[in-house]
């Protein structure tokens, strides 16, 4: 194995004979004059852009204040006819307090087959990107393992606005910790492989609902995701 390593590295070095010996990687210029974000927006406008871009990618967007959340989640799950709902560790208990569906915890011992049989999943997120309509989950509190937002056919993701919303991809990467497993979600699972006709849901959830949860004052420590 180390044989392959030495061979490949030796070939790389021979191939780069034209690169001056003293040159350091930092000597090769990278001009970063591209923008950190596109356009000037207030926090509220950034949230509105997130909502618009999510909707364009066929996610269903809802807005509510803190005290409306339990009722809204109950309605969303009931409308879907969900008999069971998967809840990650650290999901604030009051979020699902009004829900009729049976709560299923994501335990380390749960098999993929068991989780697949659950109708819906509710999670929080780490950060949401307005310009691209993207939610990023990082396994933090209220988000759970990567598999739980994948196996059930219906995913409800709660985004705290405005504090979990950033304008752009560069701003999102700044906030994220690469050591955590990350899932970026932009709209529901989709394919255009057959005559370029878009079909929602091949393997991931066919329905993605996003709840923009308006939080005023200090962020709720229990739902603060991210690293």
């Amino acid at each position: 194995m180390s044989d392959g390593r030495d061979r490949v590295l030796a070939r790389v070095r021979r191939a780069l004979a034209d690169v001056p010996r003293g040159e350091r990687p930092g000597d090769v210029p990278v001009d970063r004059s591209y923008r950190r974000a596109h356009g000037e927006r207030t926090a509220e406008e950034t949230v509105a852009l997130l909502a618009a871009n999510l909707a364009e990618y066929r996610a269903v967007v809802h807005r509510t204040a803190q005290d409306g959340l339990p009722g809204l989640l109950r309605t969303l799950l009931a409308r879907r006819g969900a008999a069971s709902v998967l809840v990650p560790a650290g999901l604030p208990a009051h979020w699902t307090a009004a829900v009729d569906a049976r709560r299923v915890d994501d335990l380390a011992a749960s098999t993929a087959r068991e989780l697949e049989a659950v109708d819906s999943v509710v999670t929080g997120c780490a950060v949401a990107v307005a310009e691209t309509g993207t939610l990023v989950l990082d396994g933090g509190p209220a988000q759970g393992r990567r598999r739980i937002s994948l196996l059930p056919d219906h995913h409800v993701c709660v985004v705290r606005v405005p504090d979990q919303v950033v304008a752009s991809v560069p701003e999102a990467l700044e906030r994220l910790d690469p050591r955590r497993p990350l899932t970026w979600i932009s709209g529901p699972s989709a394919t255009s492989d057959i005559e370029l006709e878009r079909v929602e849901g091949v393997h991931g959830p066919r329905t993605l609902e996003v709840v923009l949860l308006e939080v005023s004052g200090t962020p709720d420590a229990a739902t603060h995701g991210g690293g």
Partner: protein
Amino acid sequence: MSGTQPGTPAFPEAARDAVRDGTLRGNLRHATRTIRGKRARAVAELDDWAELRAAGKAIKDRTLRHLDHYLVRLERSVTAAGGTVHWAADAAEANRIVTGLVKATGEREVVKVKSMATQEIGLNEALEAEGVRAYETDLAELIVQLGRDRPSHTLVPAIHRNRGEIRDVFAREMAAWGRPAPDGLTDRPADLAEAARLHLREKFLRAGVGISGANFMVAETGTLVVVESEGNGRMCLTLPETLISVVGIEKVVPTWRDLEVFLQLLPRSSTAERMNPYTTMWTGTADGDGPRAFHLVLLDNGRTDTLADEVGRQALRCIRCSACLNVCPVYERAGGHAYGSVYPGPIGAILSPQLRGTGSAVDASLPYASSLCGACTDVCPVAIDFPEVLIHLRERVVQGGEATRNGVRVRLRPAKGHAAERAAMRAARWALDHPAALRAGQRLVSRTRRLHPARLPGPGRAWTDARELPEVPPEPFRDWWRRTRGDAR
């Protein structure tokens, strides 16, 4: 080394058949035009596209010029995060490593997320030979695998198949691979996707080993990135106990921050979306989330040979977005199969002959599979100068010269088929140096124009196979000039 399939026809031959296939041309035209239009709109949303593109090019150039540094750094980061790094100089070595890792788990089947690197090395066949069945899980790859077909587009590999053909393939083949297609399956895309969902879900839920490629590897952090749409990638990357990623060494980027450039360039260039539905990023292994064992196989397989070529090196900047395919007038008519490689279109025309060398007929023909119109360069998100590399490779095919094969400097001989062209060029040089002879010759050609055949006989035939023979005017230009203007002075 993997090469072309034995008997693979050279590009002009393969393209001729494709061009005669009306259905194929229709499918391709529809696909490339649709994606092209959408892409232009997605790119226009970002007013700093030119700066992003310049940064993407510069980051890749920095990486390539110091590739050894970044590969060693990547190895250290992945290892520190709990992964194991393997190095493979060629396809055989990579297949041996992966096959060994799979067999050590005791599993007899693996699920795969679409990976061009594993296709390039023929991994599925190598696994099959060892009694391990590999299931492709991307919908288009499934269509290709069940149809015993080859992919024809980087992004939409089954673009050459219409819905009726796909329905027939599913109805006929699914049962032999697992869950059969439902009775009375229609050709509605939604029904076909549902059949694929049911068929593949059984495999995902019991899979012990997942195999992937990667779009990017971050040297600084050891993070791997896979972008996709369907979720089959997420299934392969998170459900199995063991994950094996086979990735070309050119896919490394220096820092976490560099992803901000490529995650803006790639989705808009490829699927014309602001962002693709799913992106998964993982760094080694994570406690209680995802695979317990992670192996990264770093693949050379001709990449260092490409790196050794100062002009051709830029092909390694490619981020596999496939924008170049969708604007290429040659690809639009010939389709992906004509290129005889995993990498179709303009990028295939410059990458394959470098990865594999120009020794075979198909590889020697690929640098000619272009009109040199440069549309590919205009859309390339990392600004690869396609015409420059194409002409450089044509020169090598015709004249031979220095190149690196399997890490060794070799002197290539001129390709055989081009002797007539070289003779013609020598003759032209002589004629242009002798104006009187040229004038006499031109007059003779003009006077005999009615007798000219539509195609050249003898060694000139190859030239007219791919081109219309120009019509000869009734009078040479210089005679005409003298008659109409020259005398007036």
